[in-house]
């Protein structure tokens, strides 16, 4: 599984799905036309069109009652073939598993991890082969015994047969899975020792966005690599200006309950040996409200704006207006457009940062006009920057400068940076470090005002947490999931049931693929095909992902053959020549074909959520469950259509 999954974004995913389905449909239509012409001559196109229209009709006019009849039939067939025996195997397994899994000397969290992993893996390893075999053998057996022939002489559409089969197997699998889930849950709860029961929860993490400051305090996308091949964690050097920065959104008292719980899991890389090895490392959190930095940040993206940025940092907004006027004058006199890349970068940062600063003010200062004015000026400038036309761009810059000048006083009061350094603490490696901060933070010094975490340090639900190490010469390794806000815990059942749901979604996907394959292949072949897709979608998916997204150097098939033949490994740059151009020209369509194959083979990795539950986390909807859900749905419709046409165009009685 991925250690850092990003939230599922529907629109880009849907766009990708449409593209792949569109390309596949176009290919299928082209091939069908060719076959139709070969088989029917001049009447071929008309025949192909008729079949396509009948296909649409067959889906539109499906009868729920007939689908349900076929669903019930499939369920009865499965049950009378004694599929429930698998449940007996499961129960027997659990009757004796406890003998071998109990180890009271082990740490409680590790005991829980073993038990949960065992249960979830046992469930998936039993249920998935079961549905694979059922779904792949059902229709071919029906065709072999010719019982399907009697069915198709009734007013049954082939689409109804495909869907009835899918739903039937899914319902049978769901029943077995639910029973296994209940037994597994009860077994875990009974097996976990009394002293570890309190740890049997589903922690709910809120993950943030991560960035770094290097040892000199300059922004950076990642920290130092201390020599690991696996660059999952980046390191910051202790007692320097290096920081790891997390930005959390959605931080408010109603959600967190008047306190902030931060949990971290940092790794240490020591350059000192000896007795220091046994000592924990000191770490410090710094809470920052960085409104001024956000205001300045877009103007730091371009050398032309450096002077304006420095005036902003100094709080001299009148000079900012003057400087922006000067820049606007310069832009007006330019004969060529500003390069697109720099315009794009400026517009993106401007939109993100200014929206995050001024939009919350429209809520908290609803009677004031300046937040809305800044939002309007920002929108104008973003649009003009993206378009790149000199006159509107100059005009928008002047308008923003004017806004800075006219609201200088209120900006000086509201747009400020606040930071609070919290007490250092020692990290415990390889297990969570939980820190709880009350809403009222202790004064930084005697006489200093007491700050409210949510009122004074959070702006628009956003909190910035900077982490620094306090041991000279020692390094702290961090990845995005290593620091998170811990929301109030949910019951263990929450995470466990989501893991069962993920198993169910994977089971549905396998059923859909199995039934589709069985529409045109015999049982054993359909099973081999489905199993191969599972292997490819699990083991090779990441590699294919890197191949098609050009992350593997020398990845083209022809180029690779050439490199093997000439003993040039992937890191050796090939000389620019006609031969290289020809190889790459041939590789391009091959990689395009691989792109299609990559998107056709389902990715089974998102369904692996055992790690979350076994490590005591709830399974997040946004980055895990939604991916599983939409992944399964994405295959359901195309596979049903493919299965339908395969069954529709198949002569059931062919000799």
């Amino acid at each position, binding site marked *: 599984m991925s250690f850092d999954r990003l939230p599922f974004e529907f629109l880009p995913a849907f766009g990708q799905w449409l593209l792949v389905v569109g390309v596949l449909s176009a290919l299928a239509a082209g091939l069908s036309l060719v076959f139709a012409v070969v088989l029917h001559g001049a009447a071929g196109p008309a025949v192909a069109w008729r079949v396509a229209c009948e296909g649409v009709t067959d889906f539109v006019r499906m009868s729920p009652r*007939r689908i349900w*009849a076929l669903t019930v039939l499939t369920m009865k067939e499965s049950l009378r073939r004694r599929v429930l025996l698998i449940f007996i195997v499961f129960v027997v397994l659990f009757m004796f598993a406890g003998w071998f899994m109990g180890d009271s000397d082990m740490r409680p969290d590790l005991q829980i991890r073993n038990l949960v992993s065992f249960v979830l893996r046992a469930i998936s390893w039993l249920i998935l082969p079961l549905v694979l075999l059922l779904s792949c053998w059902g229709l071919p057996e029906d065709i072999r015994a010719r019982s399907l022939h009697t069915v198709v002489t009734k*007013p049954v559409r082939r689409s109804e047969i495909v869907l009835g089969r899918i739903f039937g197997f899914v319902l049978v699998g769901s029943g077995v899975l639910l029973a296994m889930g209940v037994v597994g849950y009860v077994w875990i709860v009974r097996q976990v020792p009394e002293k570890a029961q309190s740890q049997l929860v589903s922690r709910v993490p809120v993950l943030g966005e991560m960035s770094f400051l290097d040892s000199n305090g300059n922004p950076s996308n990642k920290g130092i690599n201390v020599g690991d091949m696996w660059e999952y964690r980046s390191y910051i050097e202790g007692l320097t200006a290096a920081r790891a920065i997390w930005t959390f959104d959605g931080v408010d008292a109603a959600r967190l309950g008047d306190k902030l719980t931060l949990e971290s899991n940092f790794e240490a890389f020591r350059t000192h040996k000896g007795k220091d090895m046994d000592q924990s490392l000191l770490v410090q959190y710094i809470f920052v409200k960085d409104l001024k930095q956000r205001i300045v940040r877009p103007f730091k993206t371009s050398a032309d704006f450096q002077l304006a940025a420095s005036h902003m940092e100094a709080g001299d907004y009148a000079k900012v207006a003057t400087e922006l006027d000067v820049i606007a004058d310069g832009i007006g006199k330019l004969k060529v457009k500003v390069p697109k890349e720099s315009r794009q970068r400026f517009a993106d940062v401007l939109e993100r940062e200014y929206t995050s600063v001024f939009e919350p003010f429209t809520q908290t200062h609803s009677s004031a006009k300046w937040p809305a004015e800044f939002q309007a000026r920002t929108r104008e400038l973003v649009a003009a920057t993206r378009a790149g036309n000199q006159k509107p761009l100059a005009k928008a810059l002047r308008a923003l400068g004017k806004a800075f000048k006219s609201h200088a006083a209120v900006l000086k009061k509201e747009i400020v940076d606040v930071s609070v350094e919290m007490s250092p603490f020692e990290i415990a490696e390889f297990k969570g470090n939980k820190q709880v901060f009350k809403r009222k933070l202790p004064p930084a010094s005697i006489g200093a005002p007491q700050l409210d975490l949510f009122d004074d340090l959070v702006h628009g639900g956003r909190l910035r947490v900077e982490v620094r190490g306090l041991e000279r010469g020692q390094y702290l390794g961090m990845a995005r999931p290593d620091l998170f806000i811990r929301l109030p815990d949910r019951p263990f059942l929450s995470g466990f049931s989501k893991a069962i749901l993920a198993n169910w979604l994977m089971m549905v996907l396998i059923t859909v693929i199995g039934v589709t394959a069985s529409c045109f292949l015999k049982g054993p072949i359909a099973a081999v095909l489905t199993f191969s897709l599972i292997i490819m979608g699990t083991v090779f998916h990441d590699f294919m992902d890197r191949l098609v997204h050009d992350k593997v150097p020398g990845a083209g098939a022809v180029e690779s053959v050439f490199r093997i033949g000439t003993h040039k490994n992937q890191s050796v740059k090939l000389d620019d020549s006609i031969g290289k151009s020809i190889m790459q020209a041939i590789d391009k369509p091959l990689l395009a074909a691989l792109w299609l194959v990559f998107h056709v083979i389902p990715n089974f990795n998102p369904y692996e959520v055992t790690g979350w539950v076994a490590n005591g986390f709830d399974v997040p909807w946004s980055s895990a469950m939604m991916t599983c859900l939409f992944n399964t749905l994405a295959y359901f419709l195309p596979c049903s259509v493919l299965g339908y046409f395969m069954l529709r165009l198949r002569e059931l009685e062919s000799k």
Partner: protein
Amino acid sequence: MSDESVIQIRNLSKIYRDFWGRKKVQALNSLSLDVHKGEIFGLLGPNGSGKTTTLKLLLGLLFPTSGEITILGQPASNVEKNERIGYLPEESYLYRFLNAEETLDFYGRLFDMPAAERKKRAAELIDMVELKDASRRQLKEYSKGMTRRIGLAQALINDPDLILLDEPTSGLDPIGTRKMKDLILKLRDQGKTIVMCSHLLADVQDVCDRIAILYAGELKVMGRVDELLTEQEETQLLTSHLDDAALAEIKEVLAKHDANLVSVKHPTADLEELFLRTVRESKERPGHRHVSEPSAVAATASDSTKEADS
């Protein structure tokens, strides 16, 4: 019977091909025929003549290589035509793990029939095919005859206008065969159109109005059964109580008109008639047994003793 065509077949050909598209066998060659509403139409022919292929093409289980089929006014590939069709396959290809009630309920659902109607119709059909006592047994426990009967019941679940029967009497005992034939005639009397294919000629002769004989995929003969079987060159007289004098007199009359007397004999019943009569009489007179001639019994006993001694 009316002249309205329920099935129209025009120049229908079917070639079976192998995986590579090479021709394996031509099952049908330019078959054209019409089946009229309300008639019983028989498709005859030896094994491999194309009877079952024709039925499967009508049902859309096979696709024609060329030619056209219109069935109940719609193309054979149209699923909606099946609403008015009942089909009894050669073997009853049913789900063996279902019982009779479940089977009929399942096929009733496929016709979108409401639950109450399904239940009523299933009960009527189970009664009709005399499977009431076995209605809760799974079909895998049924004998061949019982399977044929439940197969017929499923073919009639939708009260079809057109019934296609593939070897309807295959696997049935003579009583079952008779009942099946009676049922076919009854269905015809209800206005339904029936197409049956069989190579049991007696069955076809008993029930069919018209027949078509196929050979090697080609239509050889088609017409009304009575017309096809009538020998125009011969005349048959059937009388009762005719003595030798009367017979001699008739021979004289025939000689006078130059007619050639082919044979004079007592008429015989067919084997089916004999079997049914025997069963009927057995039911009326239980305990009655056939006793062999004494001399024949003695001879058989003597032979057996000799064999035992040796």
